[in-house]
Protein backbone atom coordinates (compact mmCIF):
# COMPACT_ATOMS: atom_id res chain seq x y z
CA UNK A 1 0.00 0.00 0.00
CA UNK A 2 1.33 3.39 -0.97
CA UNK A 3 0.99 6.03 1.67
CA UNK A 4 0.08 9.53 0.60
CA UNK A 5 0.70 12.72 2.55
CA UNK A 6 -0.79 12.08 5.99
CA UNK A 7 -1.46 15.70 6.92
CA UNK A 8 -4.11 16.26 4.27
CA UNK A 9 -6.52 13.56 5.31
CA UNK A 10 -5.76 13.89 9.03
CA UNK A 11 -6.39 17.64 8.91
CA UNK A 12 -9.59 17.42 6.92
CA UNK A 13 -10.95 14.40 8.78
CA UNK A 14 -10.48 16.18 12.10
CA UNK A 15 -12.14 19.36 10.85
CA UNK A 16 -15.00 17.65 9.07
CA UNK A 17 -15.65 15.16 11.84
CA UNK A 18 -15.65 17.74 14.61
CA UNK A 19 -17.88 20.17 12.68
CA UNK A 20 -20.12 17.33 11.56
CA UNK A 21 -20.39 16.06 15.12
CA UNK A 22 -21.25 19.47 16.55
CA UNK A 23 -23.84 20.16 13.86
CA UNK A 24 -25.43 16.74 14.14
CA UNK A 25 -25.51 16.93 17.92
CA UNK A 26 -27.34 20.24 17.83
CA UNK A 27 -29.66 19.73 14.87
CA UNK A 28 -30.19 15.98 14.70
CA UNK A 29 -29.33 13.88 17.72
CA UNK A 30 -30.86 16.15 20.30
CA UNK A 31 -34.29 16.40 18.61
CA UNK A 32 -34.27 12.76 17.51
CA UNK A 33 -33.25 11.32 20.87
CA UNK A 34 -35.60 13.71 22.64
CA UNK A 35 -38.51 12.72 20.43
CA UNK A 36 -37.76 9.02 20.80
CA UNK A 37 -37.43 9.41 24.56
CA UNK A 38 -40.62 11.40 24.96
CA UNK A 39 -42.52 9.02 22.74
CA UNK A 40 -41.29 6.06 24.75
CA UNK A 41 -42.36 7.81 27.91
CA UNK A 42 -45.76 8.58 26.47
CA UNK A 43 -46.12 4.95 25.34
CA UNK A 44 -45.16 3.74 28.81
CA UNK A 45 -47.57 6.21 30.39
CA UNK A 46 -50.31 5.13 28.04
CA UNK A 47 -49.69 1.48 28.88
CA UNK A 48 -49.62 2.20 32.61
CA UNK A 49 -52.82 4.23 32.45
CA UNK A 50 -54.46 1.53 30.36
CA UNK A 51 -53.49 -1.01 33.01
CA UNK A 52 -54.82 1.16 35.82
CA UNK A 53 -57.99 1.77 33.82
CA UNK A 54 -58.35 -1.96 33.42
CA UNK A 55 -57.92 -2.49 37.18
CA UNK A 56 -60.38 0.30 37.88
CA UNK A 57 -62.80 -1.29 35.46
CA UNK A 58 -62.39 -4.60 37.29
CA UNK A 59 -63.04 -2.88 40.61
CA UNK A 60 -66.01 -1.14 39.15
CA UNK A 61 -67.43 -4.38 37.82
CA UNK A 62 -66.90 -6.06 41.17
CA UNK A 63 -68.60 -3.26 43.09
CA UNK A 64 -71.39 -3.17 40.52
CA UNK A 65 -71.88 -6.84 41.05
CA UNK A 66 -71.93 -6.32 44.81
CA UNK A 67 -74.43 -3.48 44.59
CA UNK A 68 -76.58 -5.53 42.30
CA UNK A 69 -76.48 -8.43 44.70
CA UNK A 70 -77.42 -6.17 47.59
CA UNK A 71 -80.22 -4.69 45.56
CA UNK A 72 -81.47 -8.12 44.69
CA UNK A 73 -81.49 -9.18 48.35
CA UNK A 74 -83.25 -5.99 49.34
CA UNK A 75 -85.80 -6.43 46.61
CA UNK A 76 -86.47 -9.97 47.74
CA UNK A 77 -86.89 -8.80 51.34
CA UNK A 78 -89.21 -6.01 50.22
CA UNK A 79 -91.28 -8.35 48.14
CA UNK A 80 -91.54 -10.81 50.99
CA UNK A 81 -92.60 -8.10 53.40
CA UNK A 82 -95.16 -6.80 50.95
CA UNK A 83 -96.59 -10.25 50.44
CA UNK A 84 -96.88 -10.78 54.15
CA UNK A 85 -98.52 -7.43 54.65
CA UNK A 86 -100.98 -8.07 51.88
CA UNK A 87 -101.94 -11.41 53.35
CA UNK A 88 -102.31 -9.89 56.76
CA UNK A 89 -104.44 -7.04 55.38
CA UNK A 90 -106.69 -9.43 53.53
CA UNK A 91 -107.11 -11.60 56.60
CA UNK A 92 -107.83 -8.56 58.79
CA UNK A 93 -110.37 -7.08 56.46
CA UNK A 94 -112.02 -10.45 56.00
CA UNK A 95 -112.44 -10.87 59.74
CA UNK A 96 -113.71 -7.30 60.16
CA UNK A 97 -116.17 -7.69 57.33
CA UNK A 98 -117.46 -10.88 58.80
CA UNK A 99 -117.91 -9.32 62.21
CA UNK A 100 -119.65 -6.31 60.77
CA UNK A 101 -121.88 -8.52 58.69
CA UNK A 102 -122.86 -10.54 61.66
CA UNK A 103 -123.53 -7.42 63.65
CA UNK A 104 -125.69 -6.01 60.87
CA UNK A 105 -127.62 -9.26 60.54
CA UNK A 106 -128.24 -9.22 64.29
CA UNK A 107 -129.48 -5.64 64.15
CA UNK A 108 -131.69 -6.47 61.22
CA UNK A 109 -133.14 -9.43 63.06
CA UNK A 110 -133.87 -7.33 66.13
CA UNK A 111 -135.48 -4.63 64.00
CA UNK A 112 -137.55 -7.17 62.15
CA UNK A 113 -138.72 -8.72 65.37
CA UNK A 114 -139.68 -5.34 66.82
CA UNK A 115 -141.53 -4.39 63.66
CA UNK A 116 -143.35 -7.68 63.69
CA UNK A 117 -144.47 -7.22 67.28
CA UNK A 118 -145.66 -3.70 66.60
CA UNK A 119 -147.48 -4.86 63.52
CA UNK A 120 -149.14 -7.67 65.47
CA UNK A 121 -150.25 -5.32 68.23
CA UNK A 122 -151.70 -2.93 65.70
CA UNK A 123 -153.41 -5.76 63.88
CA UNK A 124 -154.92 -7.00 67.11
CA UNK A 125 -156.33 -3.64 68.03
CA UNK A 126 -157.63 -3.12 64.50
CA UNK A 127 -159.26 -6.56 64.44
CA UNK A 128 -161.00 -5.93 67.76
CA UNK A 129 -162.21 -2.52 66.63
CA UNK A 130 -163.34 -3.91 63.32
CA UNK A 131 -165.11 -6.83 65.02
CA UNK A 132 -166.91 -4.49 67.37
CA UNK A 133 -167.89 -2.26 64.47
CA UNK A 134 -169.26 -5.20 62.51
CA UNK A 135 -171.01 -6.53 65.48
CA UNK A 136 -172.53 -3.09 66.18
CA UNK A 137 -173.61 -2.66 62.57
CA UNK A 138 -175.03 -6.13 62.40
CA UNK A 139 -176.87 -5.73 65.58
CA UNK A 140 -178.27 -2.38 64.50
CA UNK A 141 -179.32 -3.79 61.17
CA UNK A 142 -180.86 -6.95 62.52
CA UNK A 143 -182.73 -5.20 65.25
CA UNK A 144 -184.30 -2.60 62.96
CA UNK A 145 -186.18 -5.22 60.97
CA UNK A 146 -188.72 -7.02 63.14
CA UNK A 147 -190.07 -9.31 60.55
CA UNK A 148 -186.67 -10.58 59.61
CA UNK A 149 -185.91 -11.03 63.24
CA UNK A 150 -188.88 -13.01 63.81
CA UNK A 151 -188.23 -15.06 60.67
CA UNK A 152 -184.72 -15.72 61.89
CA UNK A 153 -185.85 -16.74 65.23
CA UNK A 154 -188.40 -19.04 63.67
CA UNK A 155 -185.71 -20.52 61.41
CA UNK A 156 -183.54 -21.08 64.37
CA UNK A 157 -186.34 -22.54 66.32
CA UNK A 158 -187.25 -24.82 63.40
CA UNK A 159 -183.64 -26.11 63.30
CA UNK A 160 -183.68 -26.66 66.98
CA UNK A 161 -186.77 -28.79 66.70
CA UNK A 162 -185.18 -31.16 64.37
CA UNK A 163 -182.55 -31.78 66.95
Amino acid sequence: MQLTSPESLIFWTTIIFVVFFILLRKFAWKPILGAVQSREESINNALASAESARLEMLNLTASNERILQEARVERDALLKEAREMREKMIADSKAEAQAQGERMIEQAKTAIAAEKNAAMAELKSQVSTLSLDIAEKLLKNELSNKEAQTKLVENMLGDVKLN
Partner: protein
Amino acid sequence: MQKILKRKLDNNLIMVFSNKPVQFLLVALVASIPYFGFANPAVDSLSVVNEPVAAHEAHAAPEKKEFNATELINDHIKDSHEFHIADWEGHPISLYLPVILWTNNGLEVFSAEAFHHDNTGEHVVDINGQKFVRFNEVIFYADKYEALAKEQRELGAFEFDARPLDFSITKNVFSMFMSALVMFFLFLVVARSYKKNQLAPKGLAGFLEPLVTFVRDDIARPNIGEKQYAKYMPYLLTIFFFIWINNLIGLIPFFPFSSNLTGNIYFTFVLALITFIVTTLSGNKDYWGHIFNTPGVPFWLAPIMIPVEIIGMLTKPFALMIRLFANITAGHIIILSLVSLIFIFETVWISPISGAFVLFMSVLEMLVAALQAYVFTLLSALFIGQAVAEHDHH
Protein backbone atom coordinates in the same frame (compact mmCIF):
# COMPACT_ATOMS: atom_id res chain seq x y z
CA MET B 1 -44.73 -45.27 -10.73
CA GLN B 2 -41.08 -44.20 -11.21
CA LYS B 3 -41.99 -42.15 -14.21
CA ILE B 4 -44.60 -40.26 -12.24
CA LEU B 5 -42.14 -39.61 -9.47
CA LYS B 6 -39.54 -38.32 -11.88
CA ARG B 7 -42.09 -36.02 -13.48
CA LYS B 8 -43.08 -34.68 -10.12
CA LEU B 9 -39.45 -34.03 -9.25
CA ASP B 10 -38.90 -32.21 -12.53
CA ASN B 11 -41.94 -30.09 -11.90
CA ASN B 12 -40.67 -29.22 -8.47
CA LEU B 13 -37.31 -28.25 -9.88
CA ILE B 14 -38.91 -26.03 -12.46
CA MET B 15 -41.01 -24.50 -9.73
CA VAL B 16 -37.94 -23.69 -7.68
CA PHE B 17 -36.20 -22.02 -10.58
CA SER B 18 -39.22 -20.22 -11.90
CA ASN B 19 -40.25 -18.99 -8.48
CA LYS B 20 -38.57 -15.62 -8.75
CA PRO B 21 -36.94 -15.52 -12.15
CA VAL B 22 -37.53 -11.83 -12.71
CA GLN B 23 -35.89 -10.80 -9.47
CA PHE B 24 -32.96 -13.13 -10.08
CA LEU B 25 -32.37 -11.76 -13.56
CA LEU B 26 -32.58 -8.19 -12.28
CA VAL B 27 -30.12 -8.86 -9.48
CA ALA B 28 -27.72 -10.55 -11.88
CA LEU B 29 -28.02 -7.65 -14.31
CA VAL B 30 -27.46 -4.98 -11.68
CA ALA B 31 -24.60 -6.96 -10.18
CA SER B 32 -22.85 -7.21 -13.53
CA ILE B 33 -23.04 -3.46 -14.31
CA PRO B 34 -19.70 -2.64 -12.69
CA TYR B 35 -17.87 -5.21 -14.81
CA PHE B 36 -18.99 -3.56 -18.00
CA GLY B 37 -17.53 -0.42 -16.55
CA PHE B 38 -14.31 -2.14 -15.65
CA ALA B 39 -14.07 -4.18 -18.80
CA ASN B 40 -14.76 -1.66 -21.52
CA PRO B 41 -12.21 1.07 -20.81
CA ALA B 42 -9.50 -1.49 -20.23
CA VAL B 43 -10.11 -3.05 -23.63
CA ASP B 44 -10.21 0.41 -25.20
CA SER B 45 -6.98 1.52 -23.59
CA LEU B 46 -5.30 -1.71 -24.60
CA SER B 47 -6.19 -1.16 -28.24
CA VAL B 48 -5.07 2.45 -28.03
CA VAL B 49 -1.83 1.38 -26.49
CA ASN B 50 -1.41 -1.21 -29.20
CA GLU B 51 -1.92 1.22 -32.10
CA PRO B 52 1.07 3.45 -31.45
CA VAL B 53 3.10 0.35 -30.71
CA ALA B 54 2.19 -0.98 -34.15
CA ALA B 55 3.09 2.33 -35.74
CA HIS B 56 6.44 2.58 -34.03
CA GLU B 57 7.29 -1.09 -34.43
CA ALA B 58 9.97 -0.24 -36.95
CA HIS B 59 11.74 2.21 -34.62
CA ALA B 60 11.61 0.63 -31.22
CA ALA B 61 11.24 -2.79 -29.68
CA PRO B 62 7.55 -3.62 -29.10
CA GLU B 63 6.55 -2.13 -25.75
CA LYS B 64 3.69 -4.38 -24.61
CA LYS B 65 1.95 -3.03 -21.58
CA GLU B 66 1.57 -5.86 -19.10
CA PHE B 67 -1.53 -5.85 -16.96
CA ASN B 68 -0.40 -5.25 -13.40
CA ALA B 69 -3.03 -6.22 -10.83
CA THR B 70 -1.06 -4.75 -7.91
CA GLU B 71 -0.90 -1.39 -9.64
CA LEU B 72 -4.61 -1.42 -10.42
CA ILE B 73 -5.53 -2.34 -6.88
CA ASN B 74 -3.17 0.26 -5.41
CA ASP B 75 -4.63 2.89 -7.72
CA HIS B 76 -8.10 2.06 -6.47
CA ILE B 77 -7.44 1.90 -2.75
CA LYS B 78 -5.07 4.83 -2.35
CA ASP B 79 -5.95 8.47 -1.99
CA SER B 80 -5.64 10.71 -5.03
CA HIS B 81 -5.55 14.38 -6.06
CA GLU B 82 -8.12 13.79 -8.79
CA PHE B 83 -11.25 11.72 -8.95
CA HIS B 84 -10.94 9.32 -11.85
CA ILE B 85 -14.37 8.78 -13.42
CA ALA B 86 -13.72 6.75 -16.56
CA ASP B 87 -11.42 6.40 -19.56
CA TRP B 88 -12.62 7.59 -22.95
CA GLU B 89 -10.61 6.52 -26.00
CA GLY B 90 -7.52 6.10 -23.90
CA HIS B 91 -7.84 9.44 -22.14
CA PRO B 92 -8.80 9.45 -18.50
CA ILE B 93 -11.80 11.55 -17.55
CA SER B 94 -11.31 12.90 -14.05
CA LEU B 95 -12.75 15.40 -11.66
CA TYR B 96 -9.76 17.61 -10.81
CA LEU B 97 -9.74 18.47 -7.15
CA PRO B 98 -8.04 21.52 -5.65
CA VAL B 99 -4.44 21.14 -4.53
CA ILE B 100 -3.71 23.18 -1.42
CA LEU B 101 -0.02 23.42 -0.50
CA TRP B 102 1.64 25.09 2.45
CA THR B 103 4.98 25.85 0.82
CA ASN B 104 8.09 27.65 2.03
CA ASN B 105 6.61 30.79 0.42
CA GLY B 106 3.15 30.42 1.90
CA LEU B 107 -0.14 29.01 0.72
CA GLU B 108 -0.59 27.87 -2.89
CA VAL B 109 -3.90 26.70 -4.32
CA PHE B 110 -4.23 25.30 -7.83
CA SER B 111 -6.11 22.59 -9.70
CA ALA B 112 -4.73 19.06 -9.87
CA GLU B 113 -5.16 19.34 -13.65
CA ALA B 114 -1.76 21.05 -13.69
CA PHE B 115 -0.04 17.70 -13.19
CA HIS B 116 -1.59 16.26 -16.38
CA HIS B 117 -2.22 12.88 -14.67
CA ASP B 118 1.51 12.51 -14.13
CA ASN B 119 2.44 10.46 -11.12
CA THR B 120 6.01 9.62 -12.04
CA GLY B 121 7.73 12.83 -11.00
CA GLU B 122 8.49 13.88 -14.58
CA HIS B 123 6.00 16.65 -15.26
CA VAL B 124 7.20 19.83 -13.56
CA VAL B 125 4.50 22.31 -12.56
CA ASP B 126 5.43 25.95 -12.14
CA ILE B 127 3.20 27.79 -9.68
CA ASN B 128 4.15 31.41 -8.90
CA GLY B 129 7.79 30.68 -9.40
CA GLN B 130 7.86 27.45 -7.39
CA LYS B 131 8.36 24.15 -9.18
CA PHE B 132 6.53 21.00 -8.08
CA VAL B 133 6.49 17.40 -9.24
CA ARG B 134 4.16 14.59 -8.24
CA PHE B 135 5.30 11.05 -7.57
CA ASN B 136 2.79 8.42 -6.44
CA GLU B 137 0.30 11.13 -5.38
CA VAL B 138 2.90 12.87 -3.20
CA ILE B 139 3.84 16.41 -4.27
CA PHE B 140 7.54 17.40 -3.95
CA TYR B 141 9.60 20.47 -4.64
CA ALA B 142 11.07 19.68 -8.03
CA ASP B 143 14.67 20.47 -7.07
CA LYS B 144 14.60 18.52 -3.82
CA TYR B 145 12.88 15.60 -5.53
CA GLU B 146 15.87 15.23 -7.85
CA ALA B 147 18.16 14.80 -4.85
CA LEU B 148 16.08 11.98 -3.30
CA ALA B 149 17.11 8.35 -3.63
CA LYS B 150 14.58 5.88 -5.08
CA GLU B 151 13.68 4.41 -1.68
CA GLN B 152 13.18 7.91 -0.27
CA ARG B 153 10.85 8.70 -3.17
CA GLU B 154 8.81 5.55 -2.50
CA LEU B 155 8.29 6.61 1.10
CA GLY B 156 8.08 10.27 0.08
CA ALA B 157 5.04 10.97 2.24
CA PHE B 158 7.36 11.19 5.23
CA GLU B 159 10.15 13.25 3.57
CA PHE B 160 8.86 16.46 5.10
CA ASP B 161 11.98 18.43 4.02
CA ALA B 162 11.57 17.60 0.37
CA ARG B 163 7.91 18.49 0.01
CA PRO B 164 5.43 21.18 0.97
CA LEU B 165 2.70 20.36 3.47
CA ASP B 166 -0.24 19.05 1.48
CA PHE B 167 -3.72 20.08 2.61
CA SER B 168 -5.36 19.22 -0.70
CA ILE B 169 -8.99 18.28 -1.04
CA THR B 170 -8.19 14.77 -2.15
CA LYS B 171 -10.58 12.13 -3.41
CA ASN B 172 -11.15 10.87 0.14
CA VAL B 173 -11.66 14.37 1.54
CA PHE B 174 -14.10 15.10 -1.28
CA SER B 175 -15.95 11.89 -0.52
CA MET B 176 -15.99 12.70 3.18
CA PHE B 177 -17.42 16.17 2.54
CA MET B 178 -20.09 14.65 0.37
CA SER B 179 -21.05 11.95 2.85
CA ALA B 180 -21.09 14.42 5.73
CA LEU B 181 -23.39 16.76 3.80
CA VAL B 182 -25.71 13.97 2.70
CA MET B 183 -25.87 12.53 6.21
CA PHE B 184 -26.41 15.93 7.75
CA PHE B 185 -29.40 16.64 5.53
CA LEU B 186 -30.67 13.10 5.98
CA PHE B 187 -30.77 13.43 9.75
CA LEU B 188 -32.00 17.00 9.57
CA VAL B 189 -35.00 15.72 7.62
CA VAL B 190 -35.53 12.99 10.19
CA ALA B 191 -35.28 15.48 13.06
CA ARG B 192 -37.78 17.76 11.31
CA SER B 193 -40.20 14.92 10.77
CA TYR B 194 -40.43 14.41 14.54
CA LYS B 195 -41.67 17.96 14.98
CA LYS B 196 -44.53 17.43 12.55
CA ASN B 197 -45.33 13.83 13.37
CA GLN B 198 -45.85 13.02 17.02
CA LEU B 199 -47.18 9.56 16.25
CA ALA B 200 -45.27 6.45 15.18
CA PRO B 201 -42.33 7.32 12.87
CA LYS B 202 -42.90 7.10 9.12
CA GLY B 203 -40.65 6.84 6.08
CA LEU B 204 -37.02 7.80 6.61
CA ALA B 205 -37.48 8.22 10.34
CA GLY B 206 -39.08 4.81 10.49
CA PHE B 207 -36.00 3.35 8.82
CA LEU B 208 -33.35 5.21 10.82
CA GLU B 209 -34.99 5.22 14.24
CA PRO B 210 -34.47 1.50 14.87
CA LEU B 211 -30.76 2.05 14.18
CA VAL B 212 -30.65 4.98 16.59
CA THR B 213 -32.42 2.97 19.28
CA PHE B 214 -30.14 0.03 18.49
CA VAL B 215 -27.08 2.17 19.18
CA ARG B 216 -28.72 3.43 22.35
CA ASP B 217 -30.13 0.17 23.74
CA ASP B 218 -27.57 -2.38 22.54
CA ILE B 219 -24.35 -0.37 22.46
CA ALA B 220 -24.46 2.61 24.80
CA ARG B 221 -26.68 1.41 27.64
CA PRO B 222 -25.12 -1.97 28.41
CA ASN B 223 -21.54 -0.76 28.03
CA ILE B 224 -21.57 2.72 29.55
CA GLY B 225 -24.33 2.30 32.08
CA GLU B 226 -27.74 3.79 32.65
CA LYS B 227 -26.44 6.85 34.49
CA GLN B 228 -23.85 8.13 32.03
CA TYR B 229 -24.80 6.83 28.59
CA ALA B 230 -26.87 9.82 27.48
CA LYS B 231 -23.80 12.08 27.48
CA TYR B 232 -21.98 9.89 24.93
CA MET B 233 -24.93 9.12 22.66
CA PRO B 234 -24.24 11.92 20.14
CA TYR B 235 -20.63 10.77 19.70
CA LEU B 236 -21.52 7.09 19.36
CA LEU B 237 -24.33 7.82 16.90
CA THR B 238 -22.06 10.08 14.86
CA ILE B 239 -19.24 7.54 14.52
CA PHE B 240 -21.66 4.70 13.87
CA PHE B 241 -23.43 6.40 10.99
CA PHE B 242 -20.29 8.14 9.71
CA ILE B 243 -18.36 4.88 9.44
CA TRP B 244 -21.28 2.87 8.14
CA ILE B 245 -22.31 5.32 5.43
CA ASN B 246 -18.70 5.83 4.32
CA ASN B 247 -18.14 2.06 4.24
CA LEU B 248 -21.16 1.72 1.97
CA ILE B 249 -20.05 4.63 -0.21
CA GLY B 250 -16.74 2.83 -0.68
CA LEU B 251 -18.55 -0.23 -1.99
CA ILE B 252 -20.38 1.61 -4.79
CA PRO B 253 -18.02 1.17 -7.72
CA PHE B 254 -18.56 4.40 -9.67
CA PHE B 255 -18.24 8.19 -9.43
CA PRO B 256 -18.89 10.00 -7.10
CA PHE B 257 -18.55 7.06 -4.73
CA SER B 258 -15.96 4.26 -4.68
CA SER B 259 -13.44 6.12 -2.52
CA ASN B 260 -11.65 3.96 0.01
CA LEU B 261 -12.08 6.44 2.85
CA THR B 262 -12.74 4.11 5.75
CA GLY B 263 -9.99 1.83 4.46
CA ASN B 264 -7.50 4.66 4.77
CA ILE B 265 -5.31 4.42 7.84
CA TYR B 266 -5.12 8.20 8.33
CA PHE B 267 -8.89 8.38 8.55
CA THR B 268 -9.15 5.47 10.99
CA PHE B 269 -6.27 7.01 12.94
CA VAL B 270 -8.23 10.22 13.48
CA LEU B 271 -11.36 8.38 14.55
CA ALA B 272 -9.42 6.14 16.93
CA LEU B 273 -7.61 9.19 18.28
CA ILE B 274 -10.91 10.93 18.97
CA THR B 275 -12.18 7.85 20.81
CA PHE B 276 -8.91 7.82 22.77
CA ILE B 277 -9.30 11.51 23.67
CA VAL B 278 -12.94 11.03 24.70
CA THR B 279 -12.01 8.00 26.81
CA THR B 280 -9.08 9.74 28.47
CA LEU B 281 -11.01 12.92 29.20
CA SER B 282 -13.93 11.04 30.72
CA GLY B 283 -11.73 8.81 32.88
CA ASN B 284 -12.73 9.06 36.54
CA LYS B 285 -10.73 8.53 39.72
CA ASP B 286 -11.12 4.75 39.54
CA TYR B 287 -9.86 4.63 35.95
CA TRP B 288 -6.67 6.53 36.73
CA GLY B 289 -6.35 4.64 40.00
CA HIS B 290 -6.30 1.38 38.10
CA ILE B 291 -3.57 2.68 35.83
CA PHE B 292 -1.22 4.32 38.33
CA ASN B 293 -2.03 2.33 41.43
CA THR B 294 -3.56 -0.95 40.41
CA PRO B 295 -5.48 -2.27 43.38
CA GLY B 296 -4.16 -5.50 44.85
CA VAL B 297 -0.69 -5.15 43.32
CA PRO B 298 2.33 -4.57 45.61
CA PHE B 299 3.78 -1.09 45.19
CA TRP B 300 7.23 -2.32 44.13
CA LEU B 301 5.63 -3.74 40.94
CA ALA B 302 4.62 -0.21 39.94
CA PRO B 303 7.61 0.34 37.60
CA ILE B 304 6.34 -2.61 35.54
CA MET B 305 2.62 -2.10 36.01
CA ILE B 306 2.45 1.59 35.09
CA PRO B 307 4.10 1.23 31.66
CA VAL B 308 2.03 -1.87 30.97
CA GLU B 309 -1.17 -0.03 31.84
CA ILE B 310 -0.18 2.97 29.73
CA ILE B 311 0.57 0.68 26.80
CA GLY B 312 -2.84 -0.88 27.43
CA MET B 313 -4.43 2.56 27.15
CA LEU B 314 -2.82 3.05 23.76
CA THR B 315 -3.31 -0.40 22.28
CA LYS B 316 -7.08 -0.16 22.55
CA PRO B 317 -7.47 2.74 20.09
CA PHE B 318 -4.59 1.32 18.04
CA ALA B 319 -6.56 -1.90 17.59
CA LEU B 320 -9.59 0.17 16.60
CA MET B 321 -7.56 1.97 13.96
CA ILE B 322 -6.03 -1.19 12.48
CA ARG B 323 -9.25 -3.21 12.59
CA LEU B 324 -11.34 -0.79 10.54
CA PHE B 325 -8.52 -0.01 8.11
CA ALA B 326 -7.63 -3.67 7.53
CA ASN B 327 -11.19 -4.93 7.17
CA ILE B 328 -12.28 -2.35 4.65
CA THR B 329 -9.06 -2.35 2.66
CA ALA B 330 -9.06 -6.14 2.56
CA GLY B 331 -12.60 -6.13 1.22
CA HIS B 332 -11.65 -3.70 -1.54
CA ILE B 333 -8.55 -5.70 -2.40
CA ILE B 334 -10.48 -8.97 -2.64
CA ILE B 335 -13.15 -7.52 -4.91
CA LEU B 336 -10.58 -5.82 -7.14
CA SER B 337 -8.48 -9.00 -7.28
CA LEU B 338 -11.48 -11.01 -8.39
CA VAL B 339 -12.18 -8.45 -11.11
CA SER B 340 -8.51 -8.49 -12.10
CA LEU B 341 -8.74 -12.25 -12.75
CA ILE B 342 -10.50 -11.43 -16.03
CA PHE B 343 -7.48 -9.41 -17.21
CA ILE B 344 -4.90 -11.79 -15.78
CA PHE B 345 -6.38 -14.75 -17.65
CA GLU B 346 -7.08 -12.50 -20.65
CA THR B 347 -10.36 -14.21 -21.38
CA VAL B 348 -13.93 -13.07 -21.03
CA TRP B 349 -15.04 -16.60 -20.11
CA ILE B 350 -13.71 -16.23 -16.58
CA SER B 351 -16.04 -13.29 -15.99
CA PRO B 352 -19.11 -15.33 -14.91
CA ILE B 353 -17.04 -17.02 -12.23
CA SER B 354 -15.30 -13.91 -11.02
CA GLY B 355 -18.58 -12.02 -11.36
CA ALA B 356 -20.34 -14.53 -9.11
CA PHE B 357 -17.55 -14.29 -6.58
CA VAL B 358 -17.57 -10.49 -6.71
CA LEU B 359 -21.34 -10.49 -6.19
CA PHE B 360 -20.88 -12.73 -3.18
CA MET B 361 -18.03 -10.59 -1.83
CA SER B 362 -19.96 -7.37 -2.40
CA VAL B 363 -22.88 -8.68 -0.40
CA LEU B 364 -20.49 -9.88 2.28
CA GLU B 365 -18.81 -6.47 2.29
CA MET B 366 -22.17 -4.82 2.84
CA LEU B 367 -22.46 -6.92 5.96
CA VAL B 368 -18.89 -6.08 6.93
CA ALA B 369 -19.62 -2.38 6.40
CA ALA B 370 -22.36 -2.48 9.01
CA LEU B 371 -20.45 -4.89 11.21
CA GLN B 372 -17.30 -2.78 11.35
CA ALA B 373 -19.29 0.35 12.11
CA TYR B 374 -20.98 -1.62 14.89
CA VAL B 375 -17.69 -2.99 16.22
CA PHE B 376 -15.99 0.40 16.21
CA THR B 377 -18.93 1.97 18.02
CA LEU B 378 -19.28 -0.94 20.43
CA LEU B 379 -15.60 -0.91 21.38
CA SER B 380 -15.61 2.88 21.73
CA ALA B 381 -18.59 2.53 24.07
CA LEU B 382 -16.81 -0.25 25.94
CA PHE B 383 -13.65 1.84 26.44
CA ILE B 384 -15.69 4.84 27.54
CA GLY B 385 -17.65 2.55 29.84
CA GLN B 386 -14.43 1.30 31.43
CA ALA B 387 -13.31 4.88 31.93
CA VAL B 388 -16.53 6.02 33.63
CA ALA B 389 -17.35 2.81 35.51
CA GLU B 390 -17.90 3.21 39.25
CA HIS B 391 -16.18 0.27 40.86
CA ASP B 392 -17.52 -0.90 44.15
CA HIS B 393 -14.48 -2.19 46.00
CA HIS B 394 -15.14 -5.17 48.14
